[in-house]
């Protein structure tokens, strides 16, 4: 099975976010970029499927600028991916999800893909648009928020579940398929030290992004941070009852959230 995983470099969860001086977008200066959280699960899911289906390959594709995109691709090689392709976004930070989907689709349309796995959304923009846009571009059905994705070799179909707002759906579908993954069977694995060292020498394929042809545009205008949370006001108390009384009073009178 040919498994394509689409990943995105996003700021590390502990990064202190800051806007650029013109206030329009996230300032990437000094930001550490890592594999997006759901993308980590997508890579894990791809590796699990590869390990359970003989003759499978995992090909990871990412759209974005240097050097962060190449670095996250290298991280997926260290985890066990067989091939990595960097779709260079040039000066564009690669932030607009539909543009990313078009660029990725351009790079993988002609490559074999029985399964295209994405994280259900990236932790930065949280749009969740890429799986569906990829499905439309590749003319393949897509399913978002997928958990428990398995390959049933007896029927040659994928089986999976989707927790949606009202419950959980179970599905079966043949390849090819685009999946926006919510959770893999396992926690994402950690790359081992020797694999990390080896991944430094791996070849990363590089292709230029196809130019966008849409007349629709998405323009970043402002990036704002809420005033920083300064840390909890700690309640000093003598007894547990004292603590409880103080907290309830604060929630009623100060925070005004008491029902």
């Amino acid at each position, binding site marked *: 099975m040919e498994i394509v995983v689409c990943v995105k470099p996003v700021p590390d*969860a502990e990064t202190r976010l800051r806007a650029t001086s013109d206030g329009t977008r996230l300032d990437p200066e000094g930001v550490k970029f890592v594999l997006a959280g759901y993308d980590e699960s997508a890579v894990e899911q791809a590796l699990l499927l590869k390990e359970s289906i003989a003759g499978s390959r995992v090909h990871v594709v990412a759209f974005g600028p240097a050097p962060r995109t190449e670095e996250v691709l290298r991280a997926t090689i260290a985890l066990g991916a067989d091939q990595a392709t960097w779709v260079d976004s040039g000066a564009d930070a690669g932030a607009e999800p539909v543009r990313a989907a078009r660029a990725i689709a351009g790079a993988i349309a002609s490559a074999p893909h029985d399964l295209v796995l994405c994280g259900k959304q990236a*932790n930065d923009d949280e*749009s969740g648009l890429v799986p569906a846009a990829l499905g439309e571009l590749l003319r393949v059905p897509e399913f*978002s928020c997928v958990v428990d994705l398995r390959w049933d070799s007896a029927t040659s179909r994928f089986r999976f579940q989707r927790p949606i707002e009202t419950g959980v759906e179970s599905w079966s*579908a043949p390849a090819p398929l685009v999946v926006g993954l919510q959770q893999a069977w396992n926690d994402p694995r950690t790359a081992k030290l020797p694999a990390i060292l080896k991944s430094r020498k791996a070849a990363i394929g590089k292709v230029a992004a196809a130019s966008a042809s849409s007349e629709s545009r998405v323009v970043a205008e402002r990036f704002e*941070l*809420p005033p920083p949370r300064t840390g*909890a006001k700690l309640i000093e108390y003598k007894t547990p009852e004292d603590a409880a009384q103080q907290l309830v009073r604060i929630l009623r009178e100060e925070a005004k959230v008491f029902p």
Partner: protein
Amino acid sequence: MTPNALVVGELHDGHLAASTLEVIGVARALAGGAVAGLVLGAGAKAAASEFGRFGVPEAYALDDPHLDAAPAGARAAPVAATAREVGASLLLTASTTAGRDLLGRLAVAWDAAVATGVTEATAFEGGVRVRRPVFGGRATETIRLEGSRVAIATRPHAFAAVAESPVPCVVHEVPAPVLSEAYTAPQRTGVAVTARGAGPSLTDASIVVSGGRGVRAPENFRLVEELAASLGAAVGASRAVTDAGWRPTSFQVGQTGRAVSPQLYIAVGISGAIQHIVGMVSSRVIVAINSDASAPIFRVADYGIVGDLFQIVPALTAEVRRVRGA
């Protein structure tokens, strides 16, 4: 711009969903021209006329039960066709799982500028300006969606539901699409409706009380549940708790669970791994109860009690009951 707007509604128990009523309100505020509604799936025709109750004089219905059990992509073509038919330059839906799937498809099939998770929207000459929380609520972006086709998905609860203002509503039927084999091959083999507990659901609740590893054992989780019950709150859990099997994964708040933003979030014995934080940080007021003063949860909490939860939580439950007279 004087756009015609198309609202793509969702059905809930055969009626327009609450989130759709919020979308109608946004559409009426944004659209300079006419607003039309569209619903798809089994019972669409009956539900479509409900648009009239909310001031929408024209509605489209694709009453085809096959769509309910087809991949989300099967809806893209008829929705795009309807948008073209009504001359819509603006399409709106709720930012639910189905809504986001639809918008990803329409970005391509309708060649639109799109945004999901929208919490504010204003029209300007040439497009729509939207605000949306990003980075798990740690930041907000304002983006301009420009072009003659714009589609937005509004975050549930972010906008008020439109008030009733009945008008006569004409319902047009949309012909069912002929699905290619790619869209008929997948089969929905089951639907399990989530059983709701006694309290409100996690995503709807205005107060959430969550327990973490500090609770130490599954039987101690009742302390968290009793506090939640005293407050009329929903019960949540950290990943440590659901991973250990003390509570089902449907209780999990966090990156791999549910994101919640209630008025009040009380974290009991939760250290505050970033995994958890991103799922609750946009709550209005956060209270943390933990024995470890250096736990990261205190950095995002507004109020903290450093102490033994086994003493603090029962005292708090008793105090809440006393104050609420229950």
